[in-house]
């Protein structure tokens, strides 16, 4: 996911997308083998593609119509039109296309996480101090497939009332119902979690400790921000920035850990960690590190910006392209036997 957020180069994105698509298909096939009720499965390929195309189209259209910067003008809309009036440029169109591609990749990766792990499995792996944030994130992830199902329900209900979607404005009732559905659901879930003692009972902490935790958190954050600023401002001598970043991160981690210790909660079971998982985690870590290093030291390669003065077409480095196939590995690592313990499948696709 980090990779998607960090690159805007369409070639790398496309490779990543293909790899992710293959992985998703493999997982879906395995899920089908596992049996279970496909009608209740959170996401199907068709739904993912539909949502992705919708967002993609929207991104292209929106960017092309509202951004009037660029040299290669395709045609000109009357400038008197608000917002969309003005020259429509190839550059803006391409930029929208890339942004859309980014969206699509993100959705696909969300879908993979969902079908491979389930948000609850992710939740289980989050260390104690970040537990509450973790719950929030995992609920947010679960929200996407639920919203897709609700979208289908609402579309069905509207067809029942003879509502046809022809123009953009016909989508409005859909979004309104979708929003109210989402709110309803969120409230119900929050209520249930509250009634079940979510958040636990914080252990009493001394005043001094509370202040220590807060103080170190604030100082850590401050150092982090300072480090970032120094780093980007003094490009030549970056080591003071690096030092500040490391120190800040350490302080933040410490304070989070301390505050996590204060809320006492336990786990029902431990997750089994096998060599295969370790290899995978190491692989993913390596991939992530490579991408981050790339953006840090050679940001030009992953970077792509179609507007002048940059060239219209991005560069492509085949070696780097190879790197983006890496996320495909889990699909190849999966045991060939289609019937295996469902838990294997879950812990693997990390």
């Amino acid at each position, binding site marked *: 996911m980090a990779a998607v957020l960090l690159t805007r180069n369409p070639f790398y994105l496309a490779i990543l997308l293909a790899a992710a698509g293959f992985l998703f298909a493999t997982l879906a096939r395995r899920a089908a083998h596992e049996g279970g009720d496909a009608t209740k499965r959170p996401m199907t390929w068709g739904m993912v593609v539909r949502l992705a195309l919708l967002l993609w189209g929207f991104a292209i259209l929106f960017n092309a119509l509202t951004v009037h910067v660029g040299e290669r003008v395709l045609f000109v809309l009357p400038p008197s039109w608000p917002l969309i009036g003005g020259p429509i440029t190839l550059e803006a169109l391409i930029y929208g296309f890339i942004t859309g591609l980014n969206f699509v990749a993100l959705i696909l990766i969300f879908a993979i996480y969902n079908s491979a792990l389930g948000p609850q499995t992710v939740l289980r792996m989050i260390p104690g101090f970040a537990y509450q944030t973790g719950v929030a994130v995992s609920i947010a992830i679960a929200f996407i497939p639920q919203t897709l199902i609700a979208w289908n329900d609402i579309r*069905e209900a*509207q*067809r029942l*009332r003879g509502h046809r979607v022809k123009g953009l404005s016909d989508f409005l009732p859909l979004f309104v119902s979708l929003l109210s*559905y989402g709110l309803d659901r969120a409230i*119900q879930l929050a209520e249930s979690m509250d009634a079940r003692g979510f958040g636990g*009972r914080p252990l009493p902490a001394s005043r001094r400790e509370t202040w220590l935790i807060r103080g170190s958190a604030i100082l850590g954050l401050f150092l982090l921000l300072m480090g970032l600023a120094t780093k980007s401002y003094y490009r030549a001598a970056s080591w003071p920035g690096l030092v500040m970043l490391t120190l800040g991160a350490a302080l933040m981690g410490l304070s989070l850990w301390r505050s996590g210790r204060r809320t006492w909660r336990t786990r029902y079971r431990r997750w089994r960690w096998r060599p295969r998982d370790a290899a995978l985690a190491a692989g993913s870590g390596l991939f992530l590190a490579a991408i981050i290093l790339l953006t840090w030291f050679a940001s030009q390669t992953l970077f792509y910006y179609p507007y002048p003065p940059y060239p219209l077409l991005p560069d492509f480095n085949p070696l780097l392209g190879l790197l983006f196939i890496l996320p495909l590995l889990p699909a190849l690592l999966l045991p060939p036997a289609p019937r295996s313990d469902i838990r294997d499948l879950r812990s693997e696709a990390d």
Partner: protein
Amino acid sequence: MITYDRFTYRYPDASEPVLRDLTLNIPEGAFVLVMGPSGAGKSTFLRTVNGLAPHFYGGVAGGKILVGGRNPVERAPRGMADLVGMVFQDPESSFVVDVVEDELAFAMENFGLSQDLMRKRVEEALDQLKIAHLRRRPVSLLSGGEKQRVAIAAALTMQPDILVLDEPTSQLDPQAAEEVLLALRQLNEDLGLTVLLSEHRLERVAHYADYILYWPGGGQPPLFGEPAAILRQTPLTPPLITLAKALGWEPMPLTIKQGRKFARALKDQLRPAPLPETTANGHPPVIRVDNLWHSYPNRVEALRGVSLRVHAGEFVALMGRNGSGKTTLLKHLVGLLKPARGQVQVLGMDASRTPTEEITRAVAYLPQNPGRLLFTERVADELAFSRRAHGMPPDPEADRALLGRLGIAHLWERHPHDLSVGEQQRLALAAVLVTDPEVILLDEPTRGLDYVQKQELSTILRELRDAGKAILMATHDVELAAAATDRAALMAEGEIVVIGPSRRIMSESLVFASQVNKLFRDPRFLTPEDVIKALPERASSPVAR
């Protein structure tokens, strides 16, 4: 155990308190049925027991409240979680984790119990609710009854003294509801758990309850007492009690078994009208389904060779377990699903080739969750929206008349989402009826409705039927089907097992017999009205009283 002393609670934006000067004392180990019309304050009351109101909803609480020696207003839900277990109407949306075992452990994890203790309690809860075989299953793949039992087990792992359930069986079929209620009764008897449960379908629970807490609505204070005493004072009664009240049976029978004694004594005096020879009304069939097959993408066969005819001016009930194919069949009739094999014709249209938007001009379809059907800002706009979508000219006069017929014309300016469940239901019905359709399809229309609302709906539907509409209704509601329909079809595993006159179908069945029918075991008696009409002259005079 639970004491309220002049307790008052007001929602943040409300000018009037929902609970005013509530004084109540619920003894330990009681099984309390909480009943009353929708919107009377049942849910709010249940949420004050563990402090969700006022802590989750905001608002102002005053007066004294003590639950198991603690004050929920001070402790907040989090501090009550080990004392009060809470189960909600829709188990699906209250699940946090996706595997049954983990869901059971969630609350204990929050309280930091040791792993050994959690193991032990999870095992106990699995056994108490008889769901040990489901332990590794994802909750999303369970049936409705199983889900609700998981939700109850999850509440039990904290070993609470009090279990609070807000309409836990409203989404279940009769068999699944019975499973859940039996489990609750057993917990109440074996563990001495205090149970507070709200429910509309009293025929399911009235005989389990030790006490009834009745909220009459309209700001009236609630009544608390023994079931027989309370049921005497409310118009919301199951058919058995309605009949007992009408005939002055004393002591009031709460179970079929108790009622049978009175029924036996009465039976010889009754002069019922003879059963009609045939239910055919001579009208042409408007729904023709021939050898319909359908399977979902996962290759589960949802419909297997279904054939069905529904005639104009006929009201047909479609009954059967959850997942027996009722909804799937209805969706085929408006083209939302396409058949794998077979023919579906509605009003001469081929439903598999005609777009849904076109079919629904002449065929009204009310889906399971009527709220989903509503998406404008004003009740008036809902009807205008339907008209516009079907390319009809606006006609506020006709819209108002239609709402008037459904008894909700006074809500004209309101926001659809602020209406009660019963009002939403009728608005949704109005929204699909504006086109004056010839065929009406209903999917579980009585969910969340109280007896009075159900009675009203039943009257509306019968009027439509008499006006020549064909009505096909999927329902679990035995009493409604008994009171209103001409024919009934039982579905199982995607097939229509039996179809015939409602009187015959519903008196031959164990599960689908109405209460009154269980009393008399005679197809001529399905509803209290059937019995009252058959009374000889002299016996009927005390009824009028």
